[in-house]
């Protein structure tokens, strides 16, 4: 899909439909929504409202689970994760804004499993792009796009939500 035609509302519509379909086919019971700081949390808020889920939205900060500590050290500005105390046996819908290398999701899964063993985890992202480095992939998506090398896509927000396409000065 050409990037010029990315529209937040449309993407959310597609994503919501995809999630609903997956909830039905995989028989998710009383799913817990978890959004990954910060872009994923904004999207999760939208989905949380659209699905009219009563249970409060869970929030995940993956700073302490990143795999690049030895390369780039401590990240400042850690926000607290907010999750219910027990995740054993829960069905989880994990939501992020952009799925790129897969490392963020790996970190998120590690953190979730440290809280407890879920029954299943559904991964829903607003945008899936090329460049995967870890064998993970989303179950639901708002759109799938291909970007040339040196281009990055970011969600801006929280209000209004927007999509930002950046060209990096030097490749990756």
């Amino acid at each position, binding site marked *: 899909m050409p990037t010029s035609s990315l529209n937040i509302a449309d993407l959310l519509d597609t994503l919501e439909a995809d999630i609903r379909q997956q909830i039905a086919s995989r028989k998710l019971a009383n799913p817990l929504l978890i959004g990954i700081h910060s872009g994923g949390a904004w999207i999760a808020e939208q989905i949380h409202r659209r699905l009219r889920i009563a249970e409060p939205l869970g929030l995940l900060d993956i700073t302490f689970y990143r795999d690049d500590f030895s*390369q780039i*050290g*401590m990240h400042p500005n*850690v926000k607290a994760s907010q999750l219910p105390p027990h995740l054993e046996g829960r069905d989880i819908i994990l939501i992020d804004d952009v799925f790129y290398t897969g490392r963020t999701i790996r970190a998120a899964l590690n953190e979730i499993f440290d*809280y407890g063993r879920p029954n299943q985890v559904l991964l829903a992202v607003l945008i899936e792009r090329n460049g995967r480095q870890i064998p993970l992939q989303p179950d639901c998506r708002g759109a799938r796009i291909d970007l040339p090398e040196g281009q990055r896509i970011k969600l801006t927000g929280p209000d209004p939500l927007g999509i930002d396409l950046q060209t990096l000065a030097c490749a990756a």
Partner: protein
Amino acid sequence: MHRHLQLTEHGKLKHFLSIEGLSKRLLTEILDTAESFAGISEHQVKKVPLLRGKTIVNLFFENSTRTRTTFELAATRLSADVLNMNIATSATSKGESLLDTIRNLEAMHVDMFVVRHALSGAAHFIAQHTAPHISVINAGDGQHAHPTQAMLDMFTIRQHKKQFAGLKVAIVGDILHSRVARSQILALNTLGVAEVRVIAPKTLLPAHVGSMGVIPLHVMEEGLSDVDVVIMLRLQKERMNSAFLPSESEFFKCYGLTETKLQQAKPDAIVMHPGPINRGVEIASSVADGPQSVILEQVSNGIAVRMAVMTMTLGHHGGAA
């Protein structure tokens, strides 16, 4: 020299040896990072994998169960492996040099030394001579510095008082022999408090206390007047035996913190003590257990601060954060 030894050329913290030479910005970063770790103790799983696979050696040449266990707890909460070396009972007391002890441990591929030693400058020496990838944290060297204690004290003060500007802080007791006091004084001044007072008899004040950026006082009531924070220091028994003081009771009369003396301070003043406390010597039980005391918070804050310092130093090889 101190400053350059602790920091990388990008200004990131590589070793944590002393407050001296560290900027207000860096000290604030330590406090902010500690803030983010403070919540972990409330989680069901009190662990994050940040330092998984790293080996941290507690190199204690001086006995200390309290400090050592908080460092151990901090390390395990970061998923690191911990090696406890109590040198007083091991090879070094048989004459192995400091350098040889370090080299032997380095050969076991460790990542960090947390050092406590009876001589000033020991952590500094180890940092200078250790392999380049290893970080050193000073858990107390002689009478020189105890920077993690000072930072957890600053963390506690910030939690209660929000801002350092305008604060009047009194440190009471054996300043002369106290590495904690030296580090606290540096931290308080760097973070920009209004006034640091040290209250003690002349025998327990350093000879050149005036050049340390503090106001020395000998009368406690005067010294506590209108302060926001009272920090009581531990009095060691041997001071009575080496002609520093006549007796514990005389010390308590003049310099012990009682409810009456505490009334000189501001009504919302907090009472701190690095521990362990000697009840009835430097502080009355009613104050230690009273509403203004934050002594127990200091202990739990100590874990978060040490976690912060460990991750910042071991994560130093990054570029700009």
